[in-house]
């Protein structure tokens, strides 16, 4: 696929925008793809719903907005209700299974659930559920390489929380591979790299924080 359109949505405080920034930065800076990221501004972003959109492409992105999502990541029921219809018929739905009930059977074949909040709590901090979702998304869809995502996490998370966020990322990645490993072999050409911790860090350039 030349171009992949991704929407991540949830409610304010779940780290939706940061999750998008991690995936975007990973795909753009570390995987060397063209990425355009847009987010909801205005009154709709101040309430409960919050979303971030990414186009990841092998070519420069000309039209910057999503037409229909190839990948939809939802972390709240409201986000699911609002955005599910905009998912391609053969698109991939990723959802927080304790917070979202997937309606209908439209995406049954390509819907992947994870108890991200619960897994984050097990690691000691509910706040890192976005890193769990990023790991899960990386594992299931291969939209970025795990190595790139880990680098982007190190660049973007608050100082001192690297280890925790990377653990959350690995948790999400492993969960996806363990529960859905056989399913994604047939769905995805991209097989994620091994989930163990990696020490690669890009040098020679400064990164915005």
């Amino acid at each position, binding site marked *: 696929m030349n171009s992949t359109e991704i929407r991540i949505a949830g409610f304010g405080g779940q780290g939706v925008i940061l999750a998008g920034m991690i995936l975007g930065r990973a795909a753009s800076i570390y995987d060397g793809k063209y990425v355009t*990221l847009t987010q909801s*501004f205005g009154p709709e972003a101040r309430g409960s719903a919050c979303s971030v959109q990414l186009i990841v492409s092998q070519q420069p992105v*000309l039209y*910057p907005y999503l037409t229909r999502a190839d990948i939809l990541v939802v972390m709240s029921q409201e986000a699911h209700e609002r955005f599910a219809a905009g998912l391609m018929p053969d698109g991939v739905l990723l959802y927080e299974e304790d917070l979202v009930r997937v309606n209908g059977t439209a995406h049954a074949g390509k819907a992947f659930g994870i108890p991200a909040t619960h897994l984050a709590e097990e690691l000691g901090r509910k706040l890192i559920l976005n890193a769990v979702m990023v790991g899960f998304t990386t594992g299931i869809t291969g939209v970025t390489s795990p190595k790139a995502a880990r680098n982007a996490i190190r660049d973007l998370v608050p100082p001192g929380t690297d280890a925790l966020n990377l653990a959350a990322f690995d948790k999400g990645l492993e969960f996806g591979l363990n529960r859905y490993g056989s399913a994604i072999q047939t769905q995805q050409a991209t097989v994620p790299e091994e989930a163990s911790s990696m020490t690669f860090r890009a040098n020679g350039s400064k990164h915005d924080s």
Partner: protein
Amino acid sequence: MKPKGDRVLTGTQFLDGDQACCEGALAAGANFAAGYPISPSTEIVERFASRIPAVGGVFLQMEDELAASIAIVGATWGGAKAFTVTSGPGFSLMMEHIGYASMTETPCVFVDVQRGGPSTGLPTLPGQADMMQARWGSHGDYEIIALSPNSPQECFDLAIDAFNLAEQYRTPVMFMMDESVGHMTEKVVIPPANEIKVLPRRYTRLPPVEYRPFRPSPEGIPEMVKAGEGYRFHMTGLTHDERGYPAMDWQVQDKLVRRLVGKIRDHAADIVRCEEKHTFDAEIVVVAYGITSRVALKAVEMAREEGIRAGLLRPVVVWPFPEKRIRELAGRMKSLVVVEMNYGQLFYEVERAAGGRVPTSLVSHGGGAVHEPETILAEIRRAAQ
């Protein structure tokens, strides 16, 4: 204490257009910004305010846009490289001082992240309807320079050019972004500081007794001094002679305003800049700028796939207008299609430059969203028939 912090954020970044514009301003040497923050431009000054204390410089949040726009004029004469940042409603309030900056030949940059208008309009959604206002929004005769970036990378690169052009021609420069470009995040490559060309201010070397603040060089552009360094000078928005003193007669008016207009018009060939795609064999040329140029290029590529020889002309510098290039193209084209997020602003300039030699049509949009490529494609198809 020496401030710590890197003025130039060398490296590969993932920034939105607003943030990239701020980084471009910093890289160009901006050390003063005044503003009355307004969506969708707020992130520019937000970032500047957080970055500038460590780099060395000042951000002033003013009581309104009039104050912000005159503060940068004062700061410039005090030796700073200065800019202000706003969107439509604030841009309207700044017109008075854009005129004052033009009349006093003050090098500074006005950033307008365009949103839908008129009036308060669409605060968080895109527009491109301030283009004529950027050119002639203030009263009286003057010429202006305006640039139109279409990506975060260009928000960085062209912001540097905007500051350099301001210094080169001693004029306010309009940096005409739009909400789409301002709020989209993409990769931005920032080169090492020593690879960035920054034009220093041209200060006079004449002794104070010989210096005349508005005596033009052979190119029509006077040299500056810093206030407080022993030079006597007078600044006024009134029509003034070479000493800067008011002179209320038509001869002085003619000499001064003719030069203000001429210093841009006579150098238009040096200032004008266009990006062209597929124009070498095109029979339909689409003219678009800012975010619209990206969507238009998509439509051009779709048309090419259908076998229609379409091309894109994008004014990177919008003012002065690339009329010579449009005229050349009009001589060998079948049709010109202008796409802009307004109901016709640059369209009339394209039509004028084409001089009736080819049909010229407009794909307008009121703002609030960008054009759909299919809408532009439909007009290209129609024009090709």
